[in-house]
């Protein structure tokens, strides 16, 4: 009997339904089960109900910057998971916030979802081999 491979689960949080739909389709094509959320309460509820291997979160859910605390919470709850944040622009403060929130990567507004998903998959693959981890993720 063969044991089925673990199907990875992704959380995508973005206020735009078209963006969510695009990510869901791209991640489904890569065998991910994808949960989507348009706002903070829905995302927090999802975190209490599922384990996520990957989270892609917009830094602007309703107000500028309100996605960062969510990204930090996801990192705290799932320290081994990959957290990427979609940002309008990656200035110094944004990068500092990303590091201090435990985020693995920031993706600027002009990055196509295809490129983001490709980058996430590449990082997951590299992480499996190299153990590129933050403290507490041994």
């Amino acid at each position, binding site marked *: 009997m063969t044991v089925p491979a673990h199907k990875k689960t992704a959380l995508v949080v973005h206020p735009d339904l078209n963006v969510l739909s695009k990510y869901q389709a791209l991640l489904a094509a890569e065998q991910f089960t994808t949960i989507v959320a348009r706002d903070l309460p829905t995302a927090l509820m999802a975190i209490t109900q599922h384990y996520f291997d990957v989270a892609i979160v917009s830094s602007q859910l309703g107000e500028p910057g309100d996605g960062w605390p969510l990204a930090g919470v996801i990192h705290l709850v799932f320290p081994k998971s990959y957290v990427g944040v979609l940002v309008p622009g*990656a*200035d110094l403060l944004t*990068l500092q916030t990303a*590091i*201090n929130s435990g*985020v693995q990567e920031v993706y600027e507004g002009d990055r196509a979802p295809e490129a983001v998903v490709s980058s996430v998959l590449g990082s997951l693959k590299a992480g499996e081999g190299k153990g590129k981890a933050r*403290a*507490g*993720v*041994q």
Partner: protein
Amino acid sequence: MPKKPSLLIVDDEENVLFTLKLVLQEAGYEITTASSCSGALDLIHNAHRFDAILTDLWMEREDIGLELAKTASQLRPRPVIMIFTGYGSITNARGALGVPVDYFAMKPLDLDELKGALHRLLAARPGTKRGLR
């Protein structure tokens, strides 16, 4: 009595090193200091184990603290890695995100914030002793 968490603090500015040592010793940590990246690498390569490494970015040369951070990120168990700098830029912050570093702070340091972040990051590590002030 539980063992104090050990920190390596690295900075070529003597006054910064002195202040951080004083403040973090007072907070209950065991402190080792180095005034250069090469001095810090010597300590790491001589089997000294640290729970956290706090390093400046610009020492012998620009952004050399990232080299220390990269070396530290390969250690097992991996220490908490914190970088502070007076010369933050998109390039060195991107480099720090890529290591990945656990905390990135700009000088002048907010010592309460630094202590809070250090305490939180150490508490999240398996096997770290609690009970610090």
